[in-house]
């Protein structure tokens, strides 16, 4: 039974965190610094989460690096989310077949 309470407490807290700013900030923020900060946040967060985690996620660091390089090139040329993700998976699978 108590497992459900842990889950419920966590769900309540995380839902408030997720929904609060969206419901409180109902008007555009005018402050130049805040606007710039929020513009950069998504790129910074995602970049920070991608490296070095991507290289450590795979069985071999080499396949992770190859996937990072191939994924970056594919994304640079505006390929879709799905295609870039597939390319990365394929690169890891094939390179690990060869090196492991």
């Amino acid at each position, binding site marked *: 039974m108590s497992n459900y309470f842990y889950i419920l407490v966590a769900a309540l807290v995380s839902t408030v965190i997720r929904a609060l700013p969206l419901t409180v900030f109902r008007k555009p923020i005018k402050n130049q610094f805040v606007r710039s900060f929020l513009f*950069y946040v998504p790129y910074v967060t995602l970049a920070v989460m991608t490296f070095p985690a991507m290289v450590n996620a795979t069985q071999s660091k080499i396949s992770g690096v190859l996937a990072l390089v191939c994924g970056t090139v594919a994304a640079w040329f505006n390929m879709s989310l799905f295609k870039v993700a597939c390319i990365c998976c394929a690169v890891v699978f094939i390179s690990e077949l060869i090196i492991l």
Partner: protein
Amino acid sequence: MSNIFKISRKQAALEGVKDGVPIALGYFAVSFSLGIFAKKVGVDVIQGIINSFLNHASAGEYAVYSMIGAGATYVEMAIMTLVVNARYLLMSTALSQRVHPDTPMIHRIGIGFHVTDELFAISLNKPGYVNPYYCYGAFMISVFGWCAGTAIGIVAGGILPLRIVSAFSVALYGMFLACIMPAARNNRVVAITIICCFILSYLATVLPGISQISGGTRTIILTIVISTVVAILFPYPEESDE
């Protein structure tokens, strides 16, 4: 509300489902390993699925299972969730600037609930106002991958070959790259910022002190510090649009 968007609700939701497929695959891999961990602390399949649906965050769910395993108090559970998920405050604030001002409360809560690192990225990546139905479509398919992965991890952890899990595990990061690189190509500041992020993020995992902190907290610290510095040095947009 209905005529803000050029496409119908159904089209928007379908587009969300399509963009959500790689996320669902990545979540499947992540939550599969979470499921294996859940089983160790005595969480059953139903509890795992409920947790995945309601919390849908890797660090957040990991926190739940480790708190259960440690027999922590509910207050500790709440504080831990706040710490590991604090970055969603930033993401939700960023989204608040991109939803139409007339968006009703229920959709604001819905868009908020859908926020994960990855769904936030693709929803914000769409030009124009954030379409709640796009968010819901992407959420439905990816939370399905998340719940399925958890359930299978709990029931049959260890059955999938390691090669497949290893390949799946980069799907998420491939998606991240697809979200940030096109902007890097068009904006030199973003490109240089990304390179700096890679370097600093790497240093944060090896330098003594900061490398001891949990991954979620490290992400928050790096995000706030780097974004603040870049926002001061290179305000965006360069000229006010008023």
